[in-house]
């Protein structure tokens, strides 16, 4: 029988180095996983579908000028790519450690839970970045085919999309820390981002006429709005119907407001998520 006979005395690395280790191997796991390929297919499908439809039908709203092209193409679909990526890679990143028992392999080692949390978050961010990168390349490729050059507003929009990805991933990790069931955390995050937030945003702004500054998806409207000239202000429209005069308001967050909403969402959810993971027990 082979016998362990190591005479080394190991010095446990610092937390930053350990974050790097966790990130490296989690990303490797993600890149080889089935869900990565599924997300890759979804991203490719969105990109191919847009390419084919715009190429075939040549809609005027897309092809008036370069800004309207990027606004229609990118502004309407990039948030979907960001949300789906974050749900795919962050939805069960922490809850999976409990439900799938992978936490029993990594946690009982000389490593802080916060290092595991941050390492996994960075891995999820990089995996999501691959998806955003692919979508960006296809968008710019199509943009260059129809128009010469890329407007500077697109670079701003790309940066806002990245900030939004950071915020959404912070939120998905928070939800992932809240539950011990992977399916529960994925499902609830998906429902929140794809339906609930949009619904609340519409109800609050249109009916109650309050600016929905407390909804993350409201902050993300700057991704598309920055591609419009001039930048859209809040707008109210009144109409007379059988019930009398009805006023509908469309709120548009300013860039500083949008960035602040996303930053605060990330900071708050990341901190709470981390505290929850630190306190959660493997039982």
């Amino acid at each position, binding site marked *: 029988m082979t016998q*362990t006979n190591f005479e*080394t005395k190991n010095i*446990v690395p610092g937390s930053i180095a350990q974050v790097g280790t966790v990130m490296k191997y989690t990303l490797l796991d993600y890149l080889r996983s089935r869900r990565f390929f599924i997300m890759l297919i979804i991203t490719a499908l969105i990109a191919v579908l847009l390419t084919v439809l715009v190429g075939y039908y040549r809609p005027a709203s897309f092809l008036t000028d370069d800004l309207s092209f990027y606004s229609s193409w990118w502004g309407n679909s990039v948030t979907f790519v960001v949300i789906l990526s974050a749900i795919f890679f962050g939805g069960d990143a922490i809850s999976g450690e409990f439900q799938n028992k992978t936490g029993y392999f*990594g946690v*009982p080692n000389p490593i802080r839970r916060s290092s595991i949390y941050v390492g996994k978050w960075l891995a999820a961010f990089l995996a999501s970045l691959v998806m955003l990168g692919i979508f960006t390349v296809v968008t710019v490729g199509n943009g260059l085919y129809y128009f010469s050059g890329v407007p500077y507003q697109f670079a701003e929009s790309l940066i806002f999309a990245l900030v939004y990805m950071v915020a959404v991933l912070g939120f998905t990790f928070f939800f992932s820390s809240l539950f011990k069931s992977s399916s529960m955390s994925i499902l609830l995050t998906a429902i929140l981002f794809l339906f609930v937030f949009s619904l609340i945003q519409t109800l609050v702004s249109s009916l109650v006429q309050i600016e929905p500054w407390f909804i993350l998806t409201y902050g993300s409207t700057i991704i598309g709005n920055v591609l419009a000239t001039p930048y859209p202000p809040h707008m109210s429209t009144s109409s007379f119907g059988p019930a009398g005069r009805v006023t509908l308001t469309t709120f548009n967050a300013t860039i500083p407001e949008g960035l602040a909403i996303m930053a605060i969402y990330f900071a708050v959810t990341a901190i709470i998520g981390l505290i929850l993971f630190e306190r959660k027990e493997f*039982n």
Partner: protein
Amino acid sequence: MAAAADITLLENSLGVSTLFKQELRYGCREEIVMPSIEAVNLTKQYGDFCALSGLNLKIEGAKCVGFLGPNGSGKTTTLKMFTDLIRPTKGEALINGVNVHTEKKKALASVGTLIETPEIYASLTPREALSMIAEIRGISAEEITKQVETVVAEVHMEEWIDKRVGKFSKGMKQRICIASALLGNPSIILLDEPTTGLDPRGMSEVRDIIKSLKSKNRLIFMSSHILSEVSDVCDEVAMIDHGKLIVYDTLSNVTAKFAGGNNVVEVGLARPVDNQIVTQTITAFPSVVKAEKTDDKNLKIIFKGGLDVQERLLNDIVKLNIGVVSYKAASSELEDVYLKLITATL
């Protein structure tokens, strides 16, 4: 260089202790801190249910301690508190005097663990998963490949080292997790039912691994339901029930104290033995209470006393030249003790 290689060869061929290795290498004895784990009033409460109640237990030195108790007695709860998987409601879990909960990195720096049946990221290979743990534990980049391959060989998984874990059976994953506990030459190894999920051959191999680890100045603390496993592998035993420690002592003392002072050994013989030798000669040996044949080539000897008596008895029997091929403490004694103590607390 050549002299150092000679010393290493000599050490390995003699199987000398770490302490003696230092004398060989440096001509002096450096003070070595004995590995220790200590539960100080360790308590875990889930609402009204008390999973562990004020456990006080200090285990120190290179030895293998079996941790026994029925389902729900608090064994896994204790081990989880020693690995920061759960937090104590009260009390402290100390490893080498360091509080696991407040200074986890320091406390677990030299601890290998296997708690329950961990899962490994499905898309990683054993080489990658173990490299991750090795990097976390601070094993140098040059050493990682060597150590990973060695521990994988130790659990007989060499063929699978570069295959993805997702395709592995439960037993294969368990072997890889055992391998991870061996990385970095830990001075303390905490094992929670390490043979769970393994086939009989795997169980036997894991026992052999644990036995081989005992000789390397390590403290091994192992929970198990399998009493024969504990008898076979462990030097000492701690029993808990309903979250309370019932007994902690050497295996021989526990069996001697709680099984009416009697111990049992089973002797295997190469050839049939004469009845007269058993009933008259062996029975007449000092401390022997009873000797009987269980079949033509096997004897069961009941005696009073601990390890010293057991050793003397072996010498006496070998001198009879009756073809002794095996000699081991019978697990039935520990089982008797277990049933006696656990029933008494119900």
